[in-house]
């Protein structure tokens, strides 16, 4: 105690010369010394993100096979892209993967979360609901590559589970080379992605529902609202912020999808499952058309950045709403 009591006078005396200036100057003086702590992060960012991204933009304006000197060709790569059916196919498939990774899992996730929260939990107890939730979540703990290997095995045409089961129940006529046939490969890959994503949306939406005031549901029930009425008028409006964030983040993830394609189909057969990420990868490292691949990657980066900015703006607006 005695050591502490003398302390207060000392700081005030030390503080007084500083406070003679404006408080703003004091704040600036202290913040100047903090720049040095930003240095490692800033150097890393410049070396790993800024410079490579600039180089990638430059490559996209050149014709280069990866060896020798790049030849500057202006916007030729982009002009070629517009006429390339594989390019349009890849972005079209991105749309399909947004359906498979964002739209369907969100719709199913809201529905399943509502059933678990507003039907199973009150009737059979929260324990039943959380066991079911854990089962839906399980695919999420898998590394994506492992999920790919697992499904490749399930889809395998000769001895794979799916075809064996079809044979077993007498539907052998429905046997398919699921991943090897251009008609089914896209659906097969989408199925894997839906399987992977549902757990994420169910868990996020159930967490969202637990913050909803239960009195809302009780009042609706007393007023005679059925389950579907409660679903439309309470669950969906209450979950709107979560739905928006989940839709945007999973859409960005869908645009970037690479590992499942690499493991399951390598974009094939033909270009039936090609996506921008795999398209640029194969241009870089398989056909070594570096400039062309860089152009694809730049366009993808542009698209993702636009969506990310929308996301950030939405989040800051929401946060402001919270403070008010």
């Amino acid at each position, binding site marked *: 105690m005695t050591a502490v009591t003398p302390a207060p006078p000392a700081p005030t005396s030390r503080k007084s010369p500083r406070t003679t200036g404006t408080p703003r100057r004091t704040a600036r003086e202290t913040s100047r010394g903090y720049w040095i702590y930003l240095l490692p992060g800033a150097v890393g960012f410049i*070396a790993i993100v800024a410079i490579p991204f600039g180089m990638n933009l430059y490559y996209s304006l050149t014709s280069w096979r990866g060896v020798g000197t790049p030849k500057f060709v202006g916007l030729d790569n982009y002009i070629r892209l517009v006429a390339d059916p594989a390019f349009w196919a890849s972005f079209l498939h991105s749309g399909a993967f947004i359906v498979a990774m964002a739209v369907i899992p969100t719709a199913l996730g809201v529905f399943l979360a509502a059933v678990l929260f507003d*039907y199973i939990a009150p009737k059979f*107890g*929260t324990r039943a609901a959380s066991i079911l939730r854990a089962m839906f979540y399980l695919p999420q703990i898998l590394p994506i590559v492992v999920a790919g290997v697992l499904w490749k095995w399930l889809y395998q045409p000769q*001895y794979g589970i799916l075809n064996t089961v079809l044979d077993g129940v007498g539907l052998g006529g429905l046997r398919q080379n699921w991943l090897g046939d251009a008609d089914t490969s896209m659906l097969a890959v989408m199925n894997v992605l839906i399987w992977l994503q549902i757990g994420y949306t169910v868990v996020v939406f159930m967490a969202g529902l637990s913050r909803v005031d239960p009195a809302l549901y009780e009042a609706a029930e007393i007023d005679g609202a059925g389950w579907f009425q409660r679903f439309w008028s309470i669950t969906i409006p209450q979950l709107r912020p979560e739905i928006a964030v989940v839709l945007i983040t999973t859409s960005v993830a869908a645009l970037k999808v690479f590992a499942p394609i690499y493991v399951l189909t390598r974009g094939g057969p033909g270009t039936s499952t090609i996506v921008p990420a795999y398209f640029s990868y194969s241009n870089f490292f398989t056909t070594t058309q570096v400039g062309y691949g860089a152009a694809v990657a730049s366009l993808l980066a542009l698209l993702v950045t636009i969506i*990310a900015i929308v996301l950030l703006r939405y989040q800051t607006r929401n946060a402001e709403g919270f403070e008010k």
Partner: protein
Amino acid sequence: MTTTAPAPDTVPATPVRRQKPARTNRNARSRRGISGWTVLILLAGAAALMIFPFWLALINAFKPSTEYIADGPIGIPTQLDFTAIIDFWVGVNFNQKLLNSVILSGSVALIAATLSLLSAFAIGIGRLKGRVWILAVFMLAFTIPQEALVYPLFVLSRELNLYDSLLGVTIILAVLQSAFGTYMLASVLGSFPMEVLEAARLDGASRFQILRLIVLPLTRSTLAVLVTFFFIWTWNDFFLPLVLLPSASNQTVSVSLGALSGQYTSDPTALAAASMAGILPA
């Protein structure tokens, strides 16, 4: 008091949860009915379908391939057979891949957390001018598709002799992931109690002392979460390790499994064994 008394022994949780048992007692148990059970059974069926692939991988990884050919994939194996797992493990030198993954994920997690803390300290505590913009630029590192960086990184790392080395990939992934950590920690530190810092400054604490003695202990739990995230992300990361670690002795678990998916398709239980080996560390 008497009305709230039954609550704690069911769910010791938030007030939101506490309401639920009351509802259960009021009307639900008596109204389970046929429709209730139907919904439960449908939902349990859907959930079982979700975990069915895991079950198949589990039973077939330990099934002799002769039995697989004779009885198909659904039957439960009559004997435990480790040959498929062992063949895979030895065939790809899985110990080496596990070691690589542990080293890479561990060092990325620690370096990325340190970088995040330093940057967030400058932004959140130092209140740098234009910090909103600095954060926005950092976030670009997190959202940008890695395809738009990979070829230049490939070229640069070859020039710097960091190609096909765990060190190179460690640096790259640490910087990319620290962007998220910086964003998260900066928002935590932005609401840091200013009186504490002011008091420390008045007592003559240097900036480094503030970081080490005040900020670090108080953000320990957030840092622990970040380290866990970074570790898992790196463990599961596929694209950059695939490109930058071509040689078998440097590959990670994810890359080796991805590369394997093209081969081995003649042996029906090999892929099941491989995916089990991939699941086990998780």
